[in-house]
């Protein structure tokens, strides 16, 4: 009986990078308990529902950034793509376009940014930091130009269905935004862990040259990761439009960094090749819980920034220490042989 119980546990513990995920999960639980004690409202059903809905967009962009980080690259254009998605969809709807058509066009535009990111990095061999810095400013420019340098008007009563679908509506007692995040997480987690493309994404992140020599197409694999990132950013932009009922040009500002934070807190390595999307869930949750809990605690914004910054650094430090220990262990076992 005991051995049967032990086996799945062992299998879970054998997954690469699980140690950090478990550590931060414990951190998340402690954080929730502390905030709950400080302020009983924290666990009220209303706040839990709100909190989950606040975590959802961070989780979505976190999924995108995790994909890209696992390939050993980075996507700085996420926040701008969120803004671009918001402004394009809202502008089209204020001009009287049906929400479904507006959503379709918006997704195409955002995927074009993802495609450019992928090709610039893998085909043109630009450093990912520079390539996506460029598309970041371009996408923000498109967000601004979409409605001639203004926030849009209200998307109107006709778009109420759109607003309910992405944000205000509930299905089986949960807000739709949360369902969207769960559904996309399941899909992208499946693609990353259970398909050939997913394994290729890990492979080029661990060792691009080895992966290439064993027949992995670097261009298409890298581009796939950037397309995922652009797609989830696009969805977050649509959620933003639904939330506000209008388009704001500043939407999504610095979301790319939130996405990095959610990923690395959850144990995704910025060096590539390692990371679990379950970790990203924990990372995004820690981020969301901190924002929510520290607002209740009445902490000044400066303090909140410091706390979040420290957590990001500590979690990466944890990763580095664990990795160097592993390397030392391997060396030791190699020399003893």
């Amino acid at each position, binding site marked *: 009986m005991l051995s049967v119980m032990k086996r799945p546990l062992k299998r879970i513990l054998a997954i690469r990078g699980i140690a950090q995920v478990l550590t931060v999960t414990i951190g998340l639980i402690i954080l929730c308990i502390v905030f709950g004690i400080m302020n009983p409202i924290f666990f009220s059903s209303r706040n839990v529902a*709100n909190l989950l809905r606040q975590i959802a967009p961070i989780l979505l962009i976190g999924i995108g950034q995790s994909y890209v980080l696992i390939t050993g690259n980075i996507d700085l254009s996420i926040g701008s793509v969120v803004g671009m998605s918001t402004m394009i969809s809202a502008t089209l709807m204020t001009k009287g376009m049906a929400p479904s058509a507006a959503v379709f066009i918006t997704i195409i535009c955002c995927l074009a940014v993802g495609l450019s990111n992928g090709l610039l990095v893998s085909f043109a061999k630009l450093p990912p930091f520079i390539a996506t810095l460029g598309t970041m400013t371009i996408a923000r420019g498109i967000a601004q130009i979409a409605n001639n*340098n203004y926030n849009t008007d209200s998307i109107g009563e006709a778009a109420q269905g759109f607003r309910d679908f992405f944000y205000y509506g509930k299905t089986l007692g949960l807000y739709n935004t949360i369902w969207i995040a769960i559904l996309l997480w399941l899909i992208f987690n499946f693609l990353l862990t259970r398909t050939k493309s997913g394994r290729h994404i890990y492979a080029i992140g661990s060792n691009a040259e080895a992966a290439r020599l064993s027949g992995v197409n670097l261009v298409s694999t890298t581009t796939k990761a950037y397309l995922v990132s652009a797609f989830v950013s696009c969805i977050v932009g649509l*959620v*933003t439009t639904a939330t506000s009922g209008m388009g*704001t*040009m500043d939407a999504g500002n610095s979301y790319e960094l939130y996405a990095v934070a959610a990923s690395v807190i959850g144990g995704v390595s910025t060096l590539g090749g390692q990371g679990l999307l379950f970790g990203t869930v924990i990372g995004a949750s820690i981020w969301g819980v901190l924002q929510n809990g520290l607002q209740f605690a009445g902490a000044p*914004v400066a303090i909140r920034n410091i706390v979040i910054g420290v957590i990001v650094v500590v979690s990466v430090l944890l990763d580095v220490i664990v990795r160097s220990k592993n390397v030392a262990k391997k060396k030791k076992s190699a020399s003893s042989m």
Partner: protein
Amino acid sequence: MKTITESDVDKGVISMKKLSLVLLVLLVVSAMFAQGTKESSDYKVYLITMDQMDQHWVNVDKGAQKAASELGGIEYKWLAPDVKDDAKQIECINNAVAGGADAILLAANGPNAVTAALKEAAGAGVIIIYVDSAANFPAVQTLATDNTAAGTTAGKEMLKELTAKGVKSGKIGVISVNSATASTVAREAGFRKAFEGTGFTILETQYCDGDAARSKDMSANFITQGVVGLFGANEGSTVGVGNAIAEAGKSVIGVGFDKSDMILSLIKNGYLLATMAQNPDVMGYEGMKTAYKALKGEKISPEYFDTGVSVLTKASL
């Protein structure tokens, strides 16, 4: 038939001299004449805004037009780039100077972008007056919204409504853009001032970067915390406040800033109590009057003219 002699050539030289003399006289006379017409048909005043699209600038123009026709004898023109752009605004200033402007009413794009062009304009004797936003260059007067006073007005509106509902104490949430934007920081400070000495506690300000969706999240958290009032310091913040109140369906009093289609619809639906709208028409109207006085050589005071805010409520819409 005369043959050409040396004296004829000399005469030619003389006639050339005469011609240039005549030309010179003509030039002087016409210059004097031009000066004369200027004396009789008064002044050329240009309004230069950040762009032409925004209703805000259209209203500044309307105000300036009204004052110009009331005062009489002013040749008034509105110049603006099609979209907000520093280089294009500089071009507008140069065009106004070349077009013989006596005064320019300017809504400066930024504090430093256009100062070189303004220096040149001032060198050409043009009087400069700022409307809406000033640059780092001395001008006769700046006519703009005093954001601190406007914030206090917003606070008083909220306080009035809370008192009317019999609420004497409670928590109030504030959503602003960031801690660096001078106008919204001033609005927030003014808002807090209105509640000094009352039983209300104003919670730590939340910053949403002007993103209405983030403001909505923060407002929802405030409502969960049990606030009785919410204040948004700009358009995005205010829309978030209104959306959160609309969703929670609670009787939280929401007061905001700016006048947009979305904010007005939130007020009409009863989710927001009021919004503070700037008075661009007053900027144009009073700015033109200042320009006229300055051109007449009158001394202008004050240096800073608060054009105030209008409180827009469901009743006033």
